[in-house]
């Protein structure tokens, strides 16, 4: 049984159908990428999974449980954590308070301390700036904070929406390193990316989406070699 199963998902904005019957699965322990151009419907799918927008049709099943019409905060409590597009950290809260918000659904103080020290060890800059208002961090630092914040809820499945967007090459590499580390740590990862090169390099499997429909699927390696993908997304 797949950890996440999306079946016949449709999402509309008014009269415009942004997602037209999308189905895919994410198995436990995998890194799965969804690549596609701007406006293909990637973020819409992400928001539909996490319950931020209503679905016109289709089903989302997580761990065998239908979560299609659950509210976002309940979906998070089930063990799905999202790093939203544009990071969406709480600019007016401190770095530490952002991490506290990430752990909102968790009760154990010990677990919080352990995760916090893991995050601080991984990103010393966050520890250094823990009492600083998060809006003062650089874009790359904010992305590290957003990823750390998502880890604070001890998720089984991490959804990342365009995590490398707008970052310097150095931070882009860090983002994908962290994705691999999360995965090695036992977390299943579903990542939506425009940076197809990087995403396909870390992904076990990937899906390609074009104007609201999945048009190709395969392992990361296969898609990296595919001529059509090279022409359309890898700029070769």
């Amino acid at each position, binding site marked *: 049984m797949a950890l996440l199963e999306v079946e016949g998902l449709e999402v509309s904005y008014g009269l415009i159908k942004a997602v037209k019957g999308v189905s895919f699965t994410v198995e436990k322990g995998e890194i799965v990428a969804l690549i596609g151009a701007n406006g293909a419907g990637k973020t819409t799918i992400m928001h539909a999974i996490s319950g931020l927008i209503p679905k016109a049709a289709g089903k989302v099943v997580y761990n065998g449980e239908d979560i299609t019409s659950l509210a*976002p905060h309940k979906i*998070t409590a089930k063990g799905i954590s999202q790093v939203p597009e*544009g990071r969406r950290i709480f600019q007016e809260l401190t770095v530490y308070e952002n991490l506290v918000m990430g752990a*909102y659904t968790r009760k154990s103080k010990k677990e919080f301390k352990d995760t916090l020290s893991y995050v601080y060890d991984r990103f010393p800059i966050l520890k250094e700036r823990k009492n600083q208002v998060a809006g003062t961090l650089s874009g790359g630092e904010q992305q590290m904070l957003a990823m750390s914040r998502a880890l604070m809820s001890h998720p089984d499945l991490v959804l990342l929406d365009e995590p490398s967007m707008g970052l310097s090459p150095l931070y882009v590499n860090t983002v994908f390193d962290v994705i691999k580390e999360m995965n090695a740590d036992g977390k299943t990862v579903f990542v939506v990316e425009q940076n197809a090169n990087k995403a396909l390099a870390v992904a076990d499997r990937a899906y390609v989406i074009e104007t609201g429909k999945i048009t190709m699927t395969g392992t990361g390696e296969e898609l990296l070699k595919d001529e059509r993908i090279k022409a359309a997304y890898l700029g070769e």
Partner: protein
Amino acid sequence: MEFLTTFINGLSLGGVYALIALGYTMVYGIAKMLNFAHGDIIMVGGYTIMVFFNMTGLPLAAAGVAVVFCIVTGVLIEKLAYKPLRGASPLAVLITAIGVSYLLESLAQIIFGSDHKMVILNHWGTLEIGAFSVSYNTIVTLSSAIAIMIALTLFVNRTKVGKAMLAVSEDRDAASLMGISVNNIITITFAIGSALAAVAGAFYILKTPDVSTTMGSMPGIKAFTAAVIGGIGSIPGAMLGGLLLGIIETACLAVPALAPFAIAIEFGLLIIILLVKPTGILGKKKREKV
């Protein structure tokens, strides 16, 4: 000495405005709506105090009952009238809030009639030190208002739920992705705002022992003005705006030549501040999404 007396009286009145302004500003910041029925919660509190004070003769107990009753009323209004409109146009929500305001006033009129009722909660007298004289009512009001504002500030800045309120206020969707129930946070916000309005109602009756169906409208509008002056959405802004407005009003009333223009001066101040700094004194410019 007269200056000091006026200043303390102004702070005390300002404390009452600040308590009401906090309700406007927190609901605006978190639920993103102007709750024009907020002033009428003061009136609901006023009648509750009247009923229980006449029954028991205990002012503090009556105020306590009013706090509970106002919390229930405020939360019910949110659930029945505003929650179904989540995501609707701001205009629809605004009109609904005005409708709720008329509903509450009309209900009060049906139950209690339209005549003004006199409710004298106490005779604590006046503190006099030489030329300095301030009523104990003023002292109680001022010190309670300050204590409540400190407690609220600590709650918002030091507790997880308080931080969640700030998170929801800044980015509702991101907050819900953290596992924060936005609906629960909005309910808590309405509960706190209504409790503060009830307390403000009690202090208002201490100062002006008059209960009527429209008793909430003038303090409501002034507190709303205070919230906008301070920067709507900002908690310290509402406190600052409230205190400032109270001091200005009391100072104007203390000068015979200015007294008739007190209200005009208060709203004039609003216009000036909006011209100079449209976001209010402590208000922040809304960040554009990148």
